[in-house]
């Protein structure tokens, strides 16, 4: 009986193993899935878009971009969406008062009662005499011709992409070697500007691509310096175009000069004749993204990697520009991943990406001294004005008091709500 039982058990076992091996063959396939987001554009007609360029209900900050300080107001770009108008009468308690819908917006500048902003490829002028009742005034088409829409979608001449519908999608893939699933990329060209003097025309961050000096708005697209006469503020007129070079990034005004940052270097333009900017100097560096600011004697250029600019440098270059026609590298300081920067007196502020915010004593540009570093956030750009430092970070808009040059005291934070 026992022998019979063992024989039966063995047969069952052999059968089970055979079945298992058969079944395993179909069960031995690895399954790799890729989950990503598909974006579908939402279009509106240009007429609808222009009608909606006005002070709308305040929104939460979700994706902060560039900043512009004008009097008691902060204009904060919501990337590709529009502009937050923030009442900063009390820097300890900034209040978002309105949101101006400008699809495709990345850059802003303000002069007098007019806000200038890019709308994808176009430039729009918005009357902000009462910032809470902003009104669309004018659109100049095709100022930034290389500004593409995202994800391969290009709107036709009568429509504008105003939003994206996001939908998560999971697909099965054969192997990771085939998984070069990169979402198409938003091409981002943009730009506001800065002014060393009082905020008559306002102050922008160093990442700006717009700059206002007196009655002229200067803007850079990927390869050109554009000059607009804004004597009649609500009716900007394009009056000059200078071919600067390729991969232009930022523009920074100082006195009668424009410092233009490009992937390959810094260009200095004289605007002593404001209608006809003329190149007076150039400083070449290794390929990298490089916002630039300047004072009477030196230009401060941060170079960072990790973008289309290429290169692998993360440094601060201090360049002596006493002789504008022949700038000379004074010193290079290693950084982590520097982006925007600002300077007020001897204090130099650097947004060092994931390494946070750094404040240096730059009394001696050959030997700048780190006075204070705040970590724990990822910073992009800054404006220093009147002992108040505005910092745009990934998680919000911060304001710091730097009246004590040895430290930074946080005044407020408008939190990003993604």
């Amino acid at each position, binding site marked *: 009986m026992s022998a019979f039982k*063992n024989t039966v*058990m*063995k047969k069952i*076992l052999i059968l*089970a*193993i055979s079945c*298992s091996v058969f079944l*395993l063959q179909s*069960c*031995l*396939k*690895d*399954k*790799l*899935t*890729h*989950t*990503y*987001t598909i974006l579908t554009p939402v279009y509106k007609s240009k007429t609808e878009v222009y009608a909606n360029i006005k002070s709308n209900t305040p929104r939460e900050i979700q*994706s*902060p*971009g*560039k900043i512009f300080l004008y009097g008691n107001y902060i204009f904060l770009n919501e*990337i*590709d969406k529009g502009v937050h108008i923030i009442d900063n009468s009390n820097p300890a308690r900034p209040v978002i008062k309105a949101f101006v819908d400008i699809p495709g917006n*990345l850059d802003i500048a303000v002069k007098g009662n007019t806000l200038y902003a890019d709308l994808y490829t176009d430039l729009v002028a918005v009357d902000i005499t009462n910032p809470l009742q902003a009104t669309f005034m004018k659109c100049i088409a095709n100022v930034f011709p290389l500004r593409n829409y*995202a994800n391969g979608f290009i709107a036709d001449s009568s429509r504008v992409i105003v939003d994206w519908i996001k939908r998560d999608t999971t697909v099965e893939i054969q*192997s*990771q070697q085939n*998984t070069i*699933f*990169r*979402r198409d*990329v*938003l*091409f*981002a*060209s*943009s*730009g506001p500007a800065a002014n060393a003097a009082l905020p008559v025309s306002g102050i922008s961050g160093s*990442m700006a*691509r717009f700059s206002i000096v007196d009655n002229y708005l200067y803007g850079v697209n*990927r390869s050109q310096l554009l000059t607009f006469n804004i004597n009649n503020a609500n009716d900007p007129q394009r009056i000059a175009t200078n071919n600067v070079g390729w*991969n232009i*990034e*930022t523009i920074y005004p100082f006195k009668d000069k424009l410092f233009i940052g490009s*992937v390959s270097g810094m260009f200095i333009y004289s605007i002593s004749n404001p209608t006809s900017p003329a190149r007076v100097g150039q400083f070449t560096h290794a390929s990298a*993204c490089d916002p630039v600011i300047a004072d009477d004697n030196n230009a401060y250029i941060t170079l960072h*990697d*990790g*973008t*289309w*600019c290429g290169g692998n440098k993360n440094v601060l270059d201090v360049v002596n520009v006493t002789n504008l026609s022949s700038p000379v590298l004074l010193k290079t300081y290693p950084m982590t991943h520097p*982006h925007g920067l600002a300077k007020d007196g001897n204090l130099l502020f650097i947004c060092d990406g994931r390494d946070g915010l750094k404040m240096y004593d730059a009394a001696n540009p050959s030997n700048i001294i780190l006075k204070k570093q705040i970590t724990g956030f990822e910073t*992009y750009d800054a404006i220093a004005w009147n002992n108040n430092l505005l910092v*745009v970070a*990934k998680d919000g808009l911060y304001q710091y008091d730097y009246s004590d040059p040895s430290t930074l005291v946080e005044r407020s934070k408008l939190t990003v709500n993604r």
Partner: protein
Amino acid sequence: MKYFFTAVVFAFLTISSNAQHKIVFSSQNYAGLLEGENKSAFQLQTINGFKYKTWFAGLGTGLDWYYQRSIPMFASINKGFLKKGERNLFISADGGLSFPWKRDNAIEWNYGSNGKFYPGLYWSSGLGYKIGIGKNSDAVLLHVGYSYKHLIEKNTIVNPCFNPPCPESTERYDFRLRRLSLKLGWNF
């Protein structure tokens, strides 16, 4: 999983306190191969626990080089049968998590990529043959089975642009890896 491990230990302590039979510590240590759609890979395992009659239960860990090196951490249970002298067959079932050895996986071709691996489910089951050696519980173990591990990779990609902040996108890869497991081990 923490609760599961605790329950296993607690169950054995309970059995131990009431046992008529001897409960002994037992350790299974394996080296073997994993065969699947991807290329063959090496594996090492150690499972330590208690033996009671024909049952064994314990906690295991090891190294699993299949596709992405990982560390499985699991609870294991075996049941012996068809005992003939010092030899017997046993079936096994393991369940737990597979922890990636390397968490960061920044994709080199994309500066902005920020890939990270995360743990996923691990389980296996199979049939073993135990060949006792000597008077102690020393034994050679042969084991064939089916093994599954799940690894999750999440990438936050900063889409390159000229002027930050650059737009970001996130994506996720799920690696559900199914393998035939062949192991040779030593029990003591």
